[in-house]
């Protein structure tokens, strides 16, 4: 997917979850017919593919290094959306379980279980990132800050670009 499409993933995820929610609400406790079940199952698959896409995008962001505040917001949104997805998935599973026992029903239930397991794994990854990257900052050593300010004032510094170039050419890391 192109980068601009990747940016739309959170919106796509909430939109897709909303469609599922509306479809389940419109059934309002009535047994779902085969067409409605197929439609919803397709939509759950599609929504999981968006969750997967979002997770890959977040992994890539960590590969490049991400600003933590924005990244934590992304994690929070993803966790919320995945929780809605799992809630709806379990509701849908309940309606499938109410259907007569057939091979198709068993297959659908197995697929829903697998989808729930994958979404749960991805949610756990987001939760781990949230606790790792959201830990409090340690106390700032203001004496060290004052020393650095003095070094900057004396001109004992170089640009980040020069430091980066030195790392690459001098092989000092």
């Amino acid at each position: 997917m192109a980068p601009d499409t990747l940016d739309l993933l959170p919106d796509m995820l909430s939109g897709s979850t909303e469609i599922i929610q509306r479809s389940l609400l419109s059934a309002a406790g009535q047994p779902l017919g085969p067409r409605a079940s197929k439609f919803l199952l397709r939509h759950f698959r599609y929504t999981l593919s968006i969750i997967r896409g979002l997770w890959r995008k977040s992994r890539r962001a960590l590969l490049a290094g991400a600003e933590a505040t924005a990244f934590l917001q992304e994690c929070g949104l993803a966790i919320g959306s995945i929780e809605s997805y799992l809630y709806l998935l379990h509701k849908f599973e309940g309606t499938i379980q109410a259907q007569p026992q057939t091979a198709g029903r068993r297959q659908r239930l197995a697929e829903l279980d697998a989808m729930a397991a994958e979404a749960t794994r991805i949610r756990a990854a987001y939760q781990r990132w949230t606790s790792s990257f959201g830990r409090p900052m340690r106390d700032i050593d203001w004496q060290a800050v004052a020393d650095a300010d003095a070094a900057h004032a004396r001109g004992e510094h170089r640009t980040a670009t020069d430091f980066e170039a030195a790392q690459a050419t001098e092989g000092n890391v």
Partner: protein
Amino acid sequence: MVVPRDEAYINNLPLSTLAKRLITKFISGAVGGVSDEFREHNRPKPGSPYFQMRLAFRDWWGDKQPHTVDFVVNDARVAMGVLEIVWVDYQ
């Protein structure tokens, strides 16, 4: 701008070479390109000449664990296009 003490700190972190380069890239890219709004929202105290910023990453080439690096940056000379890193803390 980076002082030798902080360069040495970054170069000596127990991370892979590529992860250390990622930190330096973050300083020249993200820290250098930060918005006025972000700086104002991330000051330790209102009116302080410093703002804080955290880098989140996983060292895919080393221990594969999530890490953070906190920066405190003096932006008193931002009008001249100068941001000075004054504190770096790795967790």
